């Protein structure tokens, strides 16, 4: 193991004091370990380096043991957790790289730049694997839109996501937006990127080859986001308001050049390794690459191209200026790298080298200002095993039932639900995102999952990002399972086989036992579902301390799923296609209202047990949907989630976001004994979908459902353009004008944003 050596403070740097240690968010215990690692007092520069790498964001010190329980293996996995992005194998020598990451805290302070730089970061994670980004997804959560601040945050975040992805030229194929009081003051902004590569071009971020050169490629370094890493590991407070000047500004134009240059550097085999400078910038990228490669690094911070004069090594090491890459290259190829950079209007600057002493060493103008044993710097952080205990209130809420009477009857509840921004169309959002650039978008936003084709390939990919956070807050384990189940169902509805997931675990302060309970149980549920579905976890990210003065956010473990359509021509849309097609309901309906949107919107009550997630039933439904698509049996398939059966039927009638007309439907159901029609319409039992198909196929579809053990009820037919939606339950007929439902559904968000 590398032994510590001396380092001297940078000119004018104060000596490290207890106060400084505290300010760097290091505990006494952690500081003891630092003293032991160094065998001396750290310089301020070293303290800053430890503080960044030992922040929750970079070190996972509270969550590592729990994350280890995720299933991460499978024949399709080319790269699991531990790199910038996970990679799965596809047909014909192709592979898909994907990853989701949060930018919650920056977006709470500056929604536009926070969201924009979040997209920039996740794009870099994917193209540093050698993959060309082909899709972006985003998962967003805000307080309710009746509040002006929430509208401001929502509008700013959406514009930020759009402006960045649009400029780089990556289509946004999907996402989700939820509005709930639990996110007021602490919005969640999770961005996912999916990239495609030739499996042979896969490159890992591991520094090796003693004497190889470290190069800084891309933007100059300024004082942006210094301590962003520890900032992201802190409750939002007056203090973080005061940190405002740290906001990072994104430059998608430079990102696009960086993307092209990086892919050219990788596919031309010019470089040894590449890593983006994300959280904790130069420090984490260099230290992590060295640790992964089991080598040391020496950085000369005086060589780093600066945007502002007089920056100290401390600032240069911790700056989070965007659009920068750290590249490892053999000495004789530096000029080649610089030529490729120049072709893309970028600068490549040697700033250090790979060493054999295992040290993370920083020199500035010839003075060694930091020298830390690299392995212990990256992996030596104390690991915590916080107490996990469910809050009594949570247990009580799960047992409770609504007391308020319904504000509307079972029929009028449907427009109410379609007008709720969480259920309503998100067209106002995805219309601001370019969804057709790259000319591969087969199914864009608005359906269950985005589907894209790959040039000259037969297969297609389906992508979705989901988190039914209402279920998770009520029952983290069942909710965790349902999160993966919903993503898989969405992907399967298009006909794609769920392949694997990435995840972004957004939770509150892990030192609160009730928060850590939510975390542990949600992860357990997600892991169980991933095992059942054969969809390993390939990576992700954890965002803790999502708290504001009013307490922790609702726990939100977001799942990003990638699925494979062996033949993209088999993709299935989510809304009805032709008058005369038959409509069938798949799965069991028990009228489960616990945790439902109906209780929340119509009875002003969030509680009860969420629908239990039957993994076996989910798997059977997924397999049926995939088989039916492969046999070309289905004209549409739409899964049931928020708002249950009635909302799913309404959405299938309302049609595509730019349809010239709606379609009507007439369906009949025999009510299960004594079930309240509201429960039947709006209950949220899982493992269900509404499908439509050519009447000629009815036998084939029925047999296929039977073969997969999926409950199957032919309910009625698709009727004429702009006709009514008519649902007969038992003897009672309920009718709605689909044209009005459509207006309500598409107007809900624009109406509120115009306010």
């Amino acid at each position, binding site marked *: 193991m590398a032994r510590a050596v001396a380092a001297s403070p940078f000119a004018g740097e104060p000596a490290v004091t207890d106060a400084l240690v505290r300010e760097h968010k290091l505990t006494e215990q952690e500081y003891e370990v630092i003293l032991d690692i160094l065998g001396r007092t750290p310089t301020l520069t070293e303290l800053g380096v430890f503080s960044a790498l030992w922040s929750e964001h970079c070190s996972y010190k509270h969550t590592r043991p729990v994350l280890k329980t995720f299933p991460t293996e499978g024949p399709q996995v080319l790269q699991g957790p531990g790199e910038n992005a996970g990679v799965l194998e596809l047909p014909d020598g192709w592979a898909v790289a994907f990853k989701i990451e949060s930018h919650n805290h920056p977006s709470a*302070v*500056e929604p536009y*730049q926070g969201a924009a730089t979040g997209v920039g970061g996740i794009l870099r994670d994917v193209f540093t694997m050698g993959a060309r980004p082909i899709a972006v997804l985003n998962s967003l959560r805000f307080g309710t839109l009746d509040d002006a601040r929430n509208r401001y945050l929502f509008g700013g975040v959406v514009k930020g996501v759009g402006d960045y992805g649009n400029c780089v030229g990556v289509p946004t194929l999907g996402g989700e937006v939820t509005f709930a009081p639990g996110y007021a003051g602490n919005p969640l902004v999770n961005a996912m990127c999916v990239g495609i590569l030739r499996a042979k071009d896969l490159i890992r971020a591991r520094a090796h080859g003693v004497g190889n050169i470290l190069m800084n490629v891309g*933007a100059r370094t*300024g*004082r*942006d986001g210094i301590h962003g890493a520890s900032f992201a590991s802190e409750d939002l407070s007056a203090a973080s308001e005061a940190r*405002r*000047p740290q*906001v*990072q*500004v994104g*430059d998608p*134009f*430079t990102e696009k050049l960086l993307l092209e240059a990086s892919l050219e550097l990788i596919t031309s085999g010019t470089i040894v390794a590449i890593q983006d400078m994300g959280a904790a910038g130069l420090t984490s990228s260099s230290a992590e690459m060295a640790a992964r490669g089991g080598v040391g690094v020496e950085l000369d911070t005086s060589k780093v191209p600066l*945007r*502002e004069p007089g920056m100290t090594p401390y600032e240069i090491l911790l700056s989070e*200026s*965007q659009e920068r890459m750290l590249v490892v290259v053999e000495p004789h190829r530096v000029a080649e790298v610089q030529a490729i950079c120049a072709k893309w209007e970028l600068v490549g600057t040697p700033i250090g080298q790979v060493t054999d002493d295992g040290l993370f060493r920083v020199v500035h103008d010839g003075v060694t200002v930091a020298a830390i044993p690299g392995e212990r710097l990256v992996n030596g952080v104390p690991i915590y095993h916080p107490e996990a205990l469910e809050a009594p209130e949570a247990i009580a809420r799960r047992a409770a039932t609504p007391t308020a009477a319904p504000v509307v009857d079972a029929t009028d509840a449907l427009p109410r639900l379609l007008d709720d921004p969480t259920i309503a169309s998100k067209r106002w959002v995805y219309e601001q995102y370019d969804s057709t650039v790259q000319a591969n978008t087969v199914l864009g936003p608005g359906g269950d999952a985005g589907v894209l084709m790959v040039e000259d390939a037969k297969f297609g990919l389906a992508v979705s990002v989901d988190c039914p956070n209402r279920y998770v807050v009520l029952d983290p384990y069942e909710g965790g399972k349902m999160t993966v189940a919903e993503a898989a169902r969405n992907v399967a509805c298009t006909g794609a086989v769920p392949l694997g997931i990435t995840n972004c675990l957004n939770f509150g302060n892990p030192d609160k036992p009730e928060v850590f309970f939510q975390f542990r149980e949600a992860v357990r549920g997600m892991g169980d579902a991933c095992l059942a579905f054969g969809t390993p976890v390939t990576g992700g990210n954890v965002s803790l301390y999502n708290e504001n003065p009013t307490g922790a956010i609702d726990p939100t473990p977001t799942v990003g799923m990638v699925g494979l359509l062996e033949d993209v021509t088999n993709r299935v849309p989510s809304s009805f296609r032709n008058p005369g097609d038959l409509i069938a309901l798949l799965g069991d309906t028990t009228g489960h209202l616990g945790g439902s949107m109906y209780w929340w919107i119509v009875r002003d009550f969030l509680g009860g047990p969420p629908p239990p997630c039957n993994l076996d039933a989910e798997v059977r439904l997924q397999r049926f949907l995939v088989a039916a698509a492969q046999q070309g049996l289905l004209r549409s398939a739409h899964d049931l989630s928020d708002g249950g059966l009635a909302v799913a039927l309404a959405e299938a009638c309302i049609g595509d976001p730019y349809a010239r007309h709606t379609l009507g439907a007439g369906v009949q159901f025999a009510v299960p004994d004594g079930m309240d029609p509201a429960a039947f319409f709006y209950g949220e039992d899982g493992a269900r979908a509404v499908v439509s198909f050519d009447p000629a196929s009815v036998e084939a579809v029925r047999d296929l459902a039977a073969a997969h053990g999926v409950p199957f009820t032919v309910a009625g037919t698709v009727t004429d353009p702009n006709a009514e939606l008519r649902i007969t339950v038992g003897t009672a007929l309920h009718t709605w004008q689909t044209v009005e439902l459509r207006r309500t559904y598409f107007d809900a968000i624009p109406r509120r944003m115009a306010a």
Partner: protein
Amino acid sequence: MSFRVFVRVMPRRGLLDPQGQAVESALRALKFDQAGNVHVGRAIAFDLQADNESAARTAAIAMCEKLLANPVTEEYEIEVTAR
């Protein structure tokens, strides 16, 4: 009294200004190399009714603080002229 107000909202000093950089290099490419330290922001012009100039300025400042400038990323300057 009626005043004409011009507000100049520029990126906060120290923050990256990619637009300023792009314009600066475009100017260089066009051989306008005597120009430097280029920054690009927003210009807002409006008429304002107020009792006197200082009242007008006070109102304009309030507008900038509340709406016209984003204190997180921008700084502003106000120019008030009677008309």
